[in-house]
């Protein structure tokens, strides 16, 4: 979905008669429309899968029937009723329960209702989950978890990004040195996911040395003092953030380093070196500048992953973030929560991809929005 490989609709033939504005407007319109269609299809597919073709309905209906029958069996008042009355009451209650969860409407209708609500960002009410403050609103459930995820993912991903770009730039200058070779040698370690490193970090720092907590986000009971509270959160943040960074850092440095190396072997870089420009200027103006679109793309895509959270890492570290909430929602068949977090991710992704086209045009004079160079 990167704009570089995909020139927009062909408006070049009309050339000069069309102003820049019309070209940009038309491109923007077409692009927004295709992206929106992508989001609609993607979210609809997610809803279909979240429903498993009515399979989940059956599970939920059985749950209701079981709960109602159980409640009636335990109700002393119900025992005195005649079997007919009791049967009728059970049926009424089952119908009520099904209505409450929306199970009385057909799957197809319900799917489209979910879809249109989701697209309008009316996230609605969760079926079973509640936020910590007791609300059923999906919006509140998500908002409540968001800070934790942003804190964890933001800290780790952003520091990972800048550290690896910076180190890669340094390494590409010292190409072939021991540090360079070490990074190449260590890059296969990124095959393991963050939770895997998390287990080792917990083992070393929490179980053996007992200097950092096993998991969670804050001590129990939470410190009343603000400074202590922040310190407690930071202490809990160290291990999950480190495991996220550790699992990606070497491959990330390696990729950026190779990327910079390819660009620093361009002729114009050699030319600049021949002119005797200082190394810093060469790096800034001849290597970083032309690679800026790629760097920005990577950064933007990274910001979206910050949003989704890291389900398994959060689960292993008992971090109360979005990823874990989503996992719990799936376990509870809570479709509104699943759809809610998917739609936000989809919108953010589409928006980022859309904005990137314009950012490219800003940073790279060779790129024109909706134009083609031929």
């Amino acid at each position: 979905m990167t704009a570089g490989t995909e020139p927009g609709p062909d408006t070049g033939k009309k050339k000069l008669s069309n102003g820049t504005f019309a070209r940009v407007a038309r491109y923007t319109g077409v692009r927004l429309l295709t992206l929106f269609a992508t989001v609609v299809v993607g979210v609809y597919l997610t809803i279909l899968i979240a429903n498993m073709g009515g399979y989940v309905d059956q599970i939920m209906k059985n749950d209701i029937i079981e709960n109602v029958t159980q409640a009636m069996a335990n109700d002393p008042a119900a025992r005195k009723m005649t079997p007919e009355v009791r049967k009728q009451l059970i049926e009424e209650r089952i119908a009520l329960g099904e209505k409450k969860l929306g199970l009385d409407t057909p799957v197809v209708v319900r799917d489209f209702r979910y879809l249109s609500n989701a697209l309008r960002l009316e996230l609605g009410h969760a079926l079973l989950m509640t936020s910590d403050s007791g609300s059923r609103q999906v919006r509140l459930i998500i908002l409540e978890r968001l800070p934790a995820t942003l804190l964890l993912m933001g800290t780790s991903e952003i520091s990972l990004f800048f550290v690896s770009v910076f180190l890669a730039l340094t390494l590409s200058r010292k190409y072939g040195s021991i540090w360079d070779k070490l990074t190449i040698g260590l890059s296969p370690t990124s095959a393991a996911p963050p939770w895997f490193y998390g287990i080792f970090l917990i083992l070393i720092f929490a179980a053996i040395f007992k200097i950092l907590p096993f998991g969670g986000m804050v001590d129990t009971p939470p410190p009343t003092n603000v400074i202590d509270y922040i310190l407690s959160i930071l202490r809990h943040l160290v291990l999950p953030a480190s495991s996220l960074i550790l699992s990606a850092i070497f491959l990330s440095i390696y990729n950026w380093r190779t990327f910079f190396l390819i660009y620093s072997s361009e002729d114009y870089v050699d030319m600049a070196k021949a002119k005797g420009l200082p190394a810093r200027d060469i790096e800034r103006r001849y290597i970083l500048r032309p690679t800026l679109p790629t760097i920005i793309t990577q950064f933007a895509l990274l910001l979206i992953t910050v949003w989704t959270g890291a389900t398994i890492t959060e689960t292993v570290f008992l971090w109360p973030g979005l990823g874990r909430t989503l996992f719990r929602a799936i376990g509870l068949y809570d479709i509104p929560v699943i759809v809610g977090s998917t739609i936000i991710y989809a919108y953010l992704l589409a928006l980022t991809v859309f904005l990137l086209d314009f950012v490219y045009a800003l940073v790279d004079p060779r790129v024109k929005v909706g134009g083609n160079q031929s």
Partner: protein
Amino acid sequence: MNTFKKNVREILRYPSAIIGSVVILILIGVAIYAVIAIPYQKAITLWRGGEDVWYRNPKYAAPEWIDWLSTKKQPRSFYINSTTGKMDKVVTPNGDGTTGINITYTFNYTADYFPQEMSLYFTDKFDQKQPFVTIDWLTPDGRKLRIDNFAVDTQQTFRFSQDMNLVNSLGGTNPMEALFTGIDSKNVVKGTYKVVVTGITFEPNSDISAEFVLHGTVFGLAGTDHMRRDLMVALLWGVPIALIFGLAAALGTSVLTMIIAAFGAWYGGWLDELIQRITEVNLVLPFLSILIMIGTFYSRSIWVILGATIALSIFTGAIKGYRAIFLQVRESMYIEAARAYGASDMRIVFQYLIPRMIPLLIPGLVSSVPSFVFLEASLAVLGLGDPVLPTWGKIIDDAWANGALYKGYYYWILEPAVLLMLTGLAFALLGFALDRIFNPRLRGM
């Protein structure tokens, strides 16, 4: 053939590739051994078996080699019955229709730590009247302790440390500690111990027999888990499962991706457009969430998950990369030549386009194996592992759920984790070297 030889020679120039290949070959060997030594059905019965299969094993026992790290020795498990160990059974009929049965279990205890548990598993015969037994304990320093006496059923398990009479008579201390220490020391008294079961039966056909089981604190080469299962079963069976899942997913994903990309690039038009759109939609789909949903709602079978993984991994960024290269190759002279002599579309795609890409395919395929191996483990850690098969991820999940790191059962998590790491690293190292061999642009870097 010549290029193959050249490539092999090239691979041998990279130490990382050699290490990776050797580890992979060893893993394949272990996988074959595991499947032959413990056939599929047996592995499942063992892994799902409960107390009846594993009652002779201790719970949470570390592997035996942990002893090598310390001068003090941990006790190993053993059992004594009529076929193994030193068991003497003396039957003396009394004149009045009752029979005295005397069973003595003799064992030598040399460990420095106390055992986890001792049990007697009785299997008796009687019609109406239950036999009655008395259990005595004889220490190396010549003391004799009365453990308990009771009437036994046809099937009965007597656990020493759970017997309230014994605990009370020892003044509340743990029987395992009290029985193995001397009168005025805290240390284990080493030497020959005896358990004497003195029984009396009241019917002519009645009989008492029992098996004595001592649960040590170490077990086998891999240790045991919370259900007394020998972890070796799962560690061994984890190898073929990890390899098959990783390789099948990597192979399926990369081959299908390439074929679809080739068709899209060759035919162009609406097909190409459709593939592009599907790829964009797939980017929006939350990959892990969908796998979790399939695992939770539909089936946790490893094959269903494998299929879903492949289906979701085809239309990703890789398909765009392949497409770009295919679009270039499509314009080559040799393709034009093939067209000129009238080769069919199918022939061009499968005989001309795809073979060109195999050098690019192989490094990517090998490098993607670890992520799939870890994906299986990740799903297992979320509790979505295959319900019947023993896998590494499920060991980690069990260990995690039972607080292995809190309680210090480090071996439980470390063994599968090290194997996962080893497998992942082996494929990553090999894939890395292959990447440098097949992508000349990277070779100098």
